[in-house]
């Protein structure tokens, strides 16, 4: 039987209250949202917080809001909500692609975007999604609010820029015209961690060439987007040869480890093949947006 070590529990009533509680209870306190990463770690006694601060009542952090050229998503927004949002699917189809293969439908009823990003598991999908979409993280703490690009938010496996006394409150995604995005994952079975996955976002110029692009990998040993991919793709006409060049770049940038999910050469092959597929899909979607 897996039971967490003893802890004290308190429900935050607002973001300010959550920040007060974090300040009061110090480094041995942890925030819990969906709990589907933290509670299993507590059950295995890999994590033993003395205080658990439950933020599930903070409905102020559960929203999807179009605000000018940004889409703002509250940190407490559940995976199921993200998956089912037609607004998100129209602007950022990569989110629906990824959400459909995150854990399973029942876990998605609890898990949140903020929790996933803060857990920062190397095999977690939304980090890659946020990377390639150029999202910004809105973090609040005792000193006020700060906004970080994803490159500054991620610090490596299981580590982010969110301080012990801070709370990730929101993600902001730039809305760009003539843009498309896609995500594809290979997993052994529903709900398992990715063997490997890739995500891409592409913005087309009016003449149909690529104006901007980003490629990211999940569970393949690359923390941020594929360096040099944007430079390679910019100004070029989308096409299979170009996708293959970018895919070689992604495979070279990957640094997978051999484990029960597969050997290194197989995972590098996935980095290559999945990059081709997501670029192909992202470009096709961007072209459709252009026509629409």
């Amino acid at each position, binding site marked *: 039987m897996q039971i967490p070590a003893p802890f004290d529990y308190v429900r935050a009533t607002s973001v300010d209250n959550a920040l007060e509680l974090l300040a009061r209870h110090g480094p041995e306190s942890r925030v819990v949202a969906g709990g*589907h990463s933290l*509670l*299993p770690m507590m059950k295995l006694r890999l994590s033993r917080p003395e205080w658990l601060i439950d933020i599930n009542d903070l409905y102020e952090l559960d929203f999807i809001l179009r605000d000018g050229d940004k889409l703002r998503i509250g940190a407490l927004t559940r995976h199921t909500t993200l998956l089912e949002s037609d607004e998100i699917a129209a602007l950022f189809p990569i989110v629906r692609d990824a959400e459909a293969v995150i*854990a399973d439908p029942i876990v998605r009823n609890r898990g949140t975007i903020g929790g996933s990003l803060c857990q920062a598991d190397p095999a977690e999908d939304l980090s890659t999604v946020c990377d390639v979409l150029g999202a910004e993280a809105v973090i609040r703490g005792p000193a006020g609010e700060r906004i970080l690009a994803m490159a500054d938010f991620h610090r490596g496996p299981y580590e982010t820029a969110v301080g012990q006394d801070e709370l990730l409150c929101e993600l902001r995604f730039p809305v760009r015209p003539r843009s498309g995005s896609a995500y594809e994952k290979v997993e052994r079975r*529903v709900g398992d961690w990715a063997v490997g996955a890739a995500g891409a976002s592409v913005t087309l110029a009016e003449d149909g060439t690529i104006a901007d692009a980003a490629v990211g990998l999940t569970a393949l040993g690359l923390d941020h987007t594929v360096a040099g991919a944007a430079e390679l793709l910019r100004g070029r006409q989308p096409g299979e040869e170009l996708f293959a060049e970018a895919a070689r770049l992604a495979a070279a940038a990957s640094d997978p480890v051999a484990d029960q999910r597969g050997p290194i050469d197989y995972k590098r092959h996935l980095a290559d093949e999945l990059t081709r597929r997501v670029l192909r899909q992202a470009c096709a979607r961007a072209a459709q947006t252009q026509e629409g």
Partner: protein
Amino acid sequence: MQISMTVNGNEVTSDIEPRVLLVHYIREVLGLTGTHWGCDTSNCGTCVVLMDGQPVKSCTVLAAMAAGHDIRTVEGLASGGTLDPVQQGFMEEHGLQCGFCTPGMMLTARALLDKNPHPDTTEIRQAISGQICRCTGYATIVRSVQWAAAHPAGGDSDATAADVIDGTDTVIEDIPAQTQDTEVKA
């Protein structure tokens, strides 16, 4: 700490340790052992209950986190002596063999049908994709949910909640072996 929640329509209040998981609270404190406890790692889905109408894995929710919410377990499916159409469907279409995954499967099916009364087989399979059955190969579970979708008011079955709860349909010696299957379907 003291917690209160609604379980199958009844208000319950208990004094518990914050680390008590919802599955253990339901089974051990409330004595509702219809909710099964399986893998303990949110993989198998046998512990699924509905929280505010949505399926959740109760091995990965603290009882403290469920306080103030509306919980429905398998014991809350039948009402007034009448089985839920999902329960009837599982009987009609042989949706279970050992029965271990059944409570979770039926609650997920109930939530699916509440949201989408006419799911296709892909939608049913997706809905139960976070739950494991090692007996049926899922085919009969999918058919059971389809049966429930086709019979939203139940009916067609002579079985009642009393049969199931009293266990009168499980007195094996009363049923000739070769007709057991027909008896269940009668």
